[in-house]
């Protein structure tokens, strides 16, 4: 049985993937596109909160808010200015791939490539006898709970949330009932990008910050939504949880073969259940 630290770390990893995957699925549900730039919004979130705290002296929680709003605005600009002008899912996918390198390059030029850190935010360790956990990881877990609770309330008890769910299930019927799908798509893009940025912010005290940190979380978020079921918000949460724990536990047992085993397990899940755990059966 792995030690307690492995499970706690798995939970912290899960929180990151859940937040990332949730935003990706939201965008996919309404826009019908896999936003490959999702990882770079994560990266921008980290960088903005870094400067908010260190250069402008803004408290970390406010920095997260500012980061989320700024990246949401950027997401909307990209949607309106670039993605809406490209026809065809393939070409939209290619454009978002190209944006990966464009955003990383821009971040490299503006912020430099060296590693930065926010270890000064919530330093210290909570000693629980048998194991210890950093306050930063506790914050990641608690903050994810708060974000997911807010999303639950928004999606189930607000007009925007109901409109999102309606448009995700039946976009044409939703528009007949007066839902502006075009306006909704911008709102969803904003929320999705903000979630990626928030994920980046909450891990900023845990890991080094540089223009290239978005790649791995993007891949893991993609895996999470594939495991959970493309288009399923519940699936994104469950997929993220499974992936985070598996990643930690498998590495404990098989060390560097963890990626091989993890991806093999993902393939196995998809062979047994191609639509993912919570997705609609494929026709």
């Amino acid at each position, binding site marked *: 049985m792995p*030690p307690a630290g492995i499970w706690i770390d798995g939970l912290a990893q899960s929180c990151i993937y859940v937040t990332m995957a949730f935003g990706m699925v939201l965008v996919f549900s309404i826009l019908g596109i896999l936003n490959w730039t999702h990882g770079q919004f994560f990266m921008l979130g980290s960088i903005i909160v870094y400067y908010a705290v260190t250069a402008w002296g803004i408290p970390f929680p406010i920095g997260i808010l500012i980061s989320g709003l700024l990246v949401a605005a950027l997401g909307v600009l990209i949607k309106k200015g670039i993605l809406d002008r490209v026809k065809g899912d393939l070409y939209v996918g290619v454009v978002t791939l190209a944006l990966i390198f464009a955003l990383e390059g821009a971040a*490299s030029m503006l912020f430099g490539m060296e590693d930065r850190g926010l270890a000064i935010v919530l330093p210290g360790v909570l000693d629980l006898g048998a194991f*210890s956990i*950093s306050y930063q990881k506790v914050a990641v877990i608690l903050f994810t709970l708060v974000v997911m609770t807010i999303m639950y309330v928004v999606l189930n008890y607000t007009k925007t949330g109901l409109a999102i769910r309606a448009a995700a299930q039946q976009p044409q019927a939703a528009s007949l009932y007066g839902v502006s799908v075009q306006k909704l798509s911008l709102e969803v893009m904003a929320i999705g990008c903000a979630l990626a940025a928030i994920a980046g912010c909450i891990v900023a005290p845990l*890991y080094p910050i540089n223009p290239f940190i978005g790649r791995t979380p993007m891949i893991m978020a993609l895996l999470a939504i594939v495991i959970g079921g493309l288009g399923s918000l519940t699936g994104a949460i469950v997929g993220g949880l499974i992936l985070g724990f598996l990643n930690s536990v498998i*590495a404990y047992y098989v*060390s*560097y073969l*963890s990626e091989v085993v993890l991806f093999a397990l993902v393939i196995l899940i998809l062979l047994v259940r191609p639509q993912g755990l919570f997705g609609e059966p494929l026709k």
Partner: protein
Amino acid sequence: MKKWCVISVVLLAVVMVLGLNGSAAAEETVVVKVGNISPLSGPAGPWGQTPIPAYDAFVELLNKENPKVGNKIVHFKLIHLDDQGTPEGGASAAKRLVYEEKVKFIVGHWSWNFPAVAAVTNPAKVILVARNGNESVPGGAYNPKKMPYVVFGTPSYEEWISDVKAIVAAYPNYKKFGIVDSTQGKGIGWDYADKELTASGIRFHHEWYPVGTQDYTPYISRFKEAGCDIIFGSGDVLAAMLILKQRWEMGYKDWVIGTSGAMLDPNMFINVSGYDASQGFIGQNAAPWHFKKTKINPKYIQMCEDVMKIVSEKQGKPYVYEGWMDWVPSHLLIVLQAMQKAGTVDDTDAIMKAIRGGTFDTPAGKYTMSGAKTYGSPIVFGTAAGICKIQGYKTVFLSENPWKPLP
């Protein structure tokens, strides 16, 4: 009288012209272009960019001395190109240097694309001064017959082993050494390193992690179960910072953590890993003024100190990076001294002949090229192999283990 005056003036003019031409011939200045390929973009970009101002300042100081090869004054012109840390980038940069810039020498190479770069430089008879690693041990990519124009000016492989010995000297009561590297570095070189460590009586345990890993908790747990209390990596700074932080959070505060390679800036580790967790972190030290067991030429110590001052003044803040001294400066001085021995600036066959088995003096120390038996050619230079640790917000010299040449 008038006739004799005219003849005298003409004779004087002839003598002056001949004399000037003679001096010009003796004082001809040759500009030798030298290439430097390293990652200037991408995740490894900071490690390629940071030493460049120091390299340029060193070359300026060297040129001011007007070194001579035969009766020619040699001035070096360093050309920096980005290899993006990839084989394609390395080959592309090498081709530009060789075929467009017409360089005969490439120095300071440390990227992981040695085979791709060497495949361009060797057929063109361009001398490549690089580091060794997995590719250079018997069975690796290096082949002395196919790559006759390669020099291992920085013995990274042997230096890592020396670093481990220096750490053990500093912490003789250690329980077990934990060696950590990404799967990218897995190769036969590690088999040789393991043999050498075992022969030296060092207790160790290896862990490998996939490239891009951010959560090292599983590996730290495995090190704990193996009984390790010193963890030393092979240059992945990101991994080192995260292991440094995560082992502290897991409660293993008395562990010593380090990685090979000089630190760009100790504050980078403090910002990412936390002040308390970072104290005692070990990195390589290349600053020649620290070494006691290896004698370094005082002239080169002074040059290196002057470069630090010049770059600090130019950038308007202290330049703290010390890892540049045993790369381009050391490699360039090997090339220059070999030119002087061979009496030529562009006959790379003659210069390589002077390098093989030759003795050279650089800021890394004075060594004779070795490796005839192990590498198939005596082209491996030495290093003073020192380590430092973070203390406060700075680094302090910790220990050194004089390098011994391989047969």
